[in-house]
C-alpha cells in the first residue's frame, strides 16, 4: 500500500521525458555529461521497478531549481 502511495506521489503530475528538456524540441540532455558515468533510469519509479527485479537498492539524486537544464 505504501509503495503504491509513494509511486503515486512520485508520478502525481505529468513530467516531460528527462532526455528532452528544451521546449524547442532539441534532443538535449538535462546536463551535458548525463550518463557519462552513472547510468540514469528515466524515472524514479522505473528505477524502483528495475531495482526490485535486479535485487538492488535505489539511488535517487534530488536537486532543486533549473540545474537539470544545463544541457539545453
Amino acid at each position, binding site marked *: 500500500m505504501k509503495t503504491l502511495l509513494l509511486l503515486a506521489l512520485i508520478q502525481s*503530475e505529468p513530467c516531460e521525458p528527462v532526455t528532452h528538456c528544451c521546449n524547442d524540441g532539441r534532443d538535449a540532455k538535462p546536463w551535458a555529461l548525463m550518463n557519462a558515468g552513472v547510468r540514469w533510469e528515466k524515472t524514479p519509479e522505473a528505477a524502483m521497478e528495475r531495482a526490485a527485479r535486479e535485487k538492488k537498492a535505489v539511488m535517487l539524486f534530488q*536537486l532543486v*531549481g533549473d540545474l537539470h537544464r544545463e544541457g539545453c
Partner: protein
Amino acid sequence: MRTVTFSDAHVAKLVSEHFVSAWFNRGPGFHNEDYSAEQWIAAKSTYPTRNICTFFMTPEGMLFDYVAGYHEPAVFSARLESTIEIRKALPDGIDAVRAAHRRAAERAFAGGGTIEYRGARYDAARTSDGYFRALHEHWSRVETLPWLDEVRFDYLYGNSFTEESRDATGVGGRCVN
C-alpha cells in the same frame, strides 16, 4: 555532483553494482546563469548544501541513508562504501542497520580524518568529517526506517544554502519549464 562525481568511473562502477539510479528535480528555482557559486563549491572537496541530496532506499521506497550536498569522487566513493555496508544490514532488521550506521560514524575517516583514493590522501578538513559523523549518528538513533516522502523535503544536516524558491512545493515528478 552531476558532472564531476557521477561521471567518475570508479563511482559509476560502485553505483552500478549495487544501485539503480534515478534523478528528480524537486521544484522551481531560478535558472542559474552565474556559476560562480558552483565553481566555489566544486573547488572544495565536499559541501553539504541542501540544494541537492542523494537518497539511498529499498525498491519499495524505504530510506536507509542519504547524503546532502556536493562531494567529490573520493569523498563520495568512501561514503558509498559505508552505504553499501549499511544496505547489507537491512535483512537483519533495524538494530543491525543502526549498528552499521554507528560503525560508519566511528569509521568516518577514522584514519586521523583521512581517506585514500586512487593513491591520494584527503584530510578531514576537506572531507566534511563532522557532517558525515553527525549524519551517521543521527541514523544510528532512528526507531524505524522512514519512507522517502517523510524526509525528502526536510532532510537534515544540510547547509542552509539552497536555490529553492519560496514557491517550491516539490511534490511529484515535477519538471520545470
